[in-house]
Each structure stands twice: as C-alpha cells, then as structure tokens.
C-alpha cells in the first residue's frame, strides 16, 4: 500500500467534512470503549495482568533470537516449513512461490494486518490468483477496493447503507430487492463466502501469537473464518511479524486475556485456535502443506533502537478506540496500514519520518492511549521522541520552529521576559477591550478560526505580586 501519510492534514480535514464517514464513526464511537471498561472492571487486578503482559513481551524481545529459533525448530519438527522474509518483497515472493507450486487458483485470507503491510493481495492478484478476504469487514472493504480503517474493525468507516449498496452491486445486481437489515447482509456474505472456502486451494492467515515452546500459532477471530481458511484448503500459509513470538502456551494465554478485553471487551474471542503443524496421518482434515513466513521488515531495526517498546504491541486497537483524534477522523486519514496512536509511531518506521511529518504531531499527548494499552506502551513518549528526531533533523516547520525557539530564548532571560511580557499582556488586554476576549488576533496561526481568545487582565501576576509586597513593606 502506497503511503499518503504526508497528506495527513488535508485528509483529516476532508474526513471531518465527510458526512457519511462522520455518521459511521459516530455510530461506532464509544461502543468499544464502554465494553472494554466493563470487561476490565469485571476482572480482578487487570493492572497486574497488564504488568504481566508487558513483562512477557519485554522478556521475549530481550531474547528474541533464542525464541524465534526455538519456534522455527518446533514448526519444522512438526512437519511445517519456516521461511524468513527480510522485507515485504521477500515475503511476497515466498508466498507467491508457495501458491504457484501448489498450482493454486483461489486463495482465501483471514484478516492479517501484516498482509496489508506487505500488500499481499495486490501481489497475488497480479500473479493471477483469485484472492478472497473472509473476515466480513475485510470482505466488505475488498469489495469497495479500500484499505482497512481500523486494525480490528476494518470496515468501521462504512455505513449499513453503503454495505447494502456494495452487496447489491457485487452479489446480485439491482434486479433483486436490496437487502436492508444487518442479519440479511451477514447471511448473504456467509453464503457467498462458504462457496469460496470450499473452493480454495491456499489459505493465508496471520497470527496473534507464536508459541516458541511448541511451535504453535495462536489465532483469534469472532467469525471462525480463520478456522475455515486454514482447515479446508490443502495449503496453509501463516504470515507473521517476528515480534509475535512468546515463550510458552501459558504466556500466550495471559496475553489472550488481555487481548480480547482490550480489543472488544470480550472475556475471550469467539474462536481461539491453536495450530500446530499440518494434518497428521490419523487426522481427518487440515492442510497437508503448512508454511510459516516470518517477516522482519524493519522490526529488528526497531528492536535495536529507542522504539523497541512498540514491538510489544499485540494489535488490539484499544489505543485507536480511545484516541479523540482517531475517533474524529477514522483511520484512512493516517494514510497507511496502521492508524491511530500505534500507527503514528509505526508508520514513520516503515515509510520514513520525513514522509509522515504530521503523524507524531497530530496528537495532544493526552495519554489516554497509554492508559488503556494492554502492554503499557508509552505511546505519548514515543511520539514525543519522534518529534525530537524531527526537531534534530530540522523537519519542524518554519514558523512553528521560529516561534518556539523565540519563546524559549525569551523565557531563559527572566529580566528581559518580565518587561516584554508586561507589554504584551497590556497590548492583549487593549485588543480584548471591555469584552475580555478577541475574535481575531494579529499573527494568530489558528486559534481564532473557531475560538475567541481570552485576553486577560492587562498586567501580570508577578508584577502585581511584587507591587503588593512592596506596598506591604512600606
């Protein structure tokens, strides 16, 4: 997917003005937040669980080489094949090779964000394969030819009317009465997808966790689509980032408890599947050909630098749901695969900081994302760190940089600051007059577009304080 993160500002403005998108976001908004709150409240010591989740991920990241090697050895011992992909291009080549060797025509996919990250759908289609997304939301946006706008609810930006129109266009043409109700739409998608499942030659899934001890791939869905994607075709390909590995099954279950509650407020996802290798001789179903593609794509670089904490992310989406900026504009404005706070840290790692100037800045550092992150990623600190890199490299834009430096310069000179500040507040008070506020201000970069500016009392606290003290002394 080609990044448009450099156009964030224009895209955000357009999103705010898009009535249909606003209707969809408004309808979705709050649901995840309320459900998560209830699930967390019902769990004894959720804070302790978060701390345990964080420690599991930190420990694994400290010994990532060891656990990855152990995981790979176990997969191979179980009859699977492990492929190491340094970047997206390598991963696409590996996956296309497997599909060609399997003489595949049709590929079913269970939702994978790493798949979006490497643009696997376009590559498969260019290679002549039919690709069908089997997660309902992902299927909807595949029909709409759009990227996901949320990492766990990819079609959250779509209204029911839009989905109804899409199904109309793709499933049966306008001669059949259009489906209006949600259950009808779900039923129709289920029927269409059922045939795709049965006819698929290759199934591609992501992974929520990779268990080093056993070589197990853990997958969660609420639709069972991953299970059908991986049991029905003869070939199963798992595509996962290298940061998904955890040491033991017990570690995976700790993280599962965090994941479902943080993502959707469920105690556990409807389907939690543990995949350990291809079909054994005595088993009735499952693939005979089983591959795990482990993707680096910049992750080992992050492991070595100051953004390592981001590799703890388990992709629950809680930071998106609790972000007031994401809630206002949805995911597409961010311009690449990962939106919201986690995306604002990740996207610059993938597309370059200079091509994503706004992402670290379009945030008030209010910290709500960090407060709900199941693995305690200090997202505001990481965003601030990106701002520091931008400032060091001189990316920070002209007027803003000049104004900030001027303020800092003056603030470091209290004896100059006080008289100048005194003059400035007198001037402001004059501008505000008796009303006590101004509708327009000279040199204003954006405040008075939508707000009045309270113009103050005309003299500073420090001046008044010293005057009173002096009078007191006399």
């Amino acid at each position, binding site marked *: 997917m080609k990044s448009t993160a450099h156009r964030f500002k224009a895209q955000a403005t357009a999103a705010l003005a898009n009535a249909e998108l606003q209707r969809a976001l408004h309808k979705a908004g709050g649901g995840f937040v309320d459900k998560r709150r209830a699930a967390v409240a019902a769990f004894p010591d959720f804070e302790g669980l978060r701390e345990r989740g964080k420690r599991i991920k930190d420990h694994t990241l400290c010994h990532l080489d060891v656990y990855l090697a152990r995981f790979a050895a176990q997969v191979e011992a179980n009859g699977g094949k492990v492929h190491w992909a340094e970047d997206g291009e390598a991963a696409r080549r590996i996956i296309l090779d497997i599909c060609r060797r399997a003489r595949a025509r049709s590929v079913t996919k269970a939702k994978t964000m790493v798949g979006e990250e490497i643009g696997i759908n376009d590559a498969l289609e260019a290679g002549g394969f039919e690709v069908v997304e089997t997660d309902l939301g992902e299927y909807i946006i595949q029909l709409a030819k759009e990227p996901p706008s949320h990492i766990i609810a990819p079609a959250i930006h779509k209204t029911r009317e839009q989905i109804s129109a899409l199904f109309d266009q793709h499933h049966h043409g306008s001669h059949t009465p259009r489906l209006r109700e949600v259950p009808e739409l779900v039923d129709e998608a289920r029927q269409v997808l059922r045939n795709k499942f049965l006819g698929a030659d290759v199934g591609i899934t992501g992974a929520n966790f990779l268990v080093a001890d056993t070589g197990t791939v853990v997958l969660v869905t609420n639709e069972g689509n991953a299970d059908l994607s991986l049991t029905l075709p003869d070939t199963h390909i798992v595509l996962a980032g290298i940061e998904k590995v955890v040491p033991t099954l017990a570690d995976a279950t700790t993280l599962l408890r965090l994941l479902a509650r943080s993502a959707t407020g469920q105690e556990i996802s409807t389907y939690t599947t543990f995949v350990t290798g291809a079909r054994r001789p005595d088993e009735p179903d499952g693939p005979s050909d089983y591959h795990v593609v482990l993707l680096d794509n910049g992750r080992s670089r992050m492991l070595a630098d100051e953004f390592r904490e981001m590799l703890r992310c388990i992709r629950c989406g809680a930071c998106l749901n609790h972000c007031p900026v994401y809630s*206002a504009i949805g995911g597409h404005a961010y311009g690449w695969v990962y939106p919201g706070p986690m995306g604002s840290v990740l996207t610059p790692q993938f597309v370059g900081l200079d091509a994503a100037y706004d992402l670290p800045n*379009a945030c*008030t550092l209010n910290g709500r994302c*960090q407060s709900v992150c199941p693995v305690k990623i200090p997202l505001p600190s990481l965003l601030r760190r990106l701002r520091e890199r931008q400032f060091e490299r001189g990316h920070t834009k002209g007027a803003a940089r000049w104004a900030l430096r001027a303020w800092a310069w003056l603030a470091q000179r209290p004896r100059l600051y006080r008289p100048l500040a005194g003059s400035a507040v007198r001037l402001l008070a004059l501008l505000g007059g008796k009303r006590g506020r101004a509708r327009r201000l000279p040199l204003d970069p954006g405040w008075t577009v939508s707000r009045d500016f309270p113009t103050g009392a005309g003299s500073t606290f420090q001046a008044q304080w010293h005057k009173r003290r002096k009078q007191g002394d006399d």
Partner: protein
Amino acid sequence: MPEPSRSPRVALFVTCLADLLRPQVGFAAVKLLEAAGCRVEVPEGQTCCGQPAYNSGDRADAAALARQTIAACEGYDYVVLPSGSCAGMLHQYPQLLADDPAWAERARRLTARTHELTSFLTDVLGAKALPPARFDHTVTYHDGCAGLRELGVKRQPRQLLAQVTGLNLIEMRDTDVCCGFGGTFCVKYPELSTRMVSDKCANIAATGAEVVLAGELGCLFNIAGRLAREGRAVKALHVAEVLAGMGDGPGIGEERS
C-alpha cells in the same frame, strides 16, 4: 520535609498562563496555601516550565528551562503549581537532565517536593483549613489530561469542591477526554482541535451547569474561547478561584464589569 510544628515554606510556580493571562489564579493559590498554614513565596526568575519546548521535540531548550526552574525553586519545602501539566513537566526534569548527574540529582530533589495545587492541598495537607468559600452555582469539572494521567489528579479537586457551600457538581460525559488544547496542537491542527473542543462544549452544556471548572488554564482558555464563540452562557473558572472564594468576578474571557 518540614517538621509538623513549623509552617512549610512553599514556592509558588505560578505558570506562564496564570502569570500573563489570569493573575487571579495565582492570588487564589496564595490564599489557599496561606489559609492552610503555608508561608508562600514567588521565586524570582521563574518564567516557563519548558513544556512547549519539551513537547515540540526541543530537548535542549527544555533542559535549559528545567535548570532555570530548578535554580529558582530549590531550597523550599515544597513547590506548588496551579496546573497539572506544568507540575507534570517538573516531574520530567530528572529524565530530561539524566545526562548531567549533578543536575539530575538536583532535579530529583525538586521533583520529590513538587505538587499540583489541589493534590498538595489534599494529599499533603489533608484538605483541612480551606478558607470559607461560598459558590451558589451548578458546576461541572473537566479533568486536564496531564494532571489526570501523569499525576493521578481526579479525586482531589472534587474532594475540595465538596467543601464549598452552595456548590453543586454535575459530572459531564467524557470528563476525562481531552478538550483538544494540546499546547501547540490547537494552532497546528485547528480543525481537529475545534472538533474536540466542540464535543467538550456540548458535553458541558448537556449538564446544564452554569460554570465549568478545571485545574488547567490551557484547557480553560480553549474551552472558554469556544464556549464564547458558540454563544453559550457558561462561565469558565480555574478551580482555585472557586475554592478561594474568588469566583464571583468575570470568568475567563468574560466581559469585565
């Protein structure tokens, strides 16, 4: 730490917003602290805590302002600020100055005795000896994000407001959601900021409160400015002004009488 018998010497770091645009917040803080038995001083040489530089990625200027603030405010029993975000900024000084062991140690000593005003009055002084205050109005309270999440300020202002005669607090929906100020955010991304502050104002208006309170002037200027533009007759005040019995004059951005 001071002996219990002796009245603590408190440095008031008034914050640049209160200093320049709402001096009454400083005087309210002084009144509250003195009523609680503190000897209050306003150290010379205080200007800005460095937050704008720090949040814009300018670590060098933030560190310079940190050293200036430490030099101005050390040597007191406590440093108190009528702002959660500025108090939170002072708590960042040790890591900001971590490269310089001597300054980092001075920063740690300062941070250990630095408090946001309402948290100081409750958590340190036990919410006793407030000056008598009366405020016959329905109010709602906005939680500033930095105070709430960096310093855990949530219960403290409410506990203090419960002691004000005649005051009726109605909580708004999403009181802990950002108002869209965010320092330079509000002028860098005015459309996003406007959307967030409009949502905040709608939640405030839905309570029917006559007054919105907060412990953070950044939020209050943003909210008051938007309330005025929307033509809503809700007054905005810093919580210290109401606690000190100084809430009856013009609100923030309100016509001077």
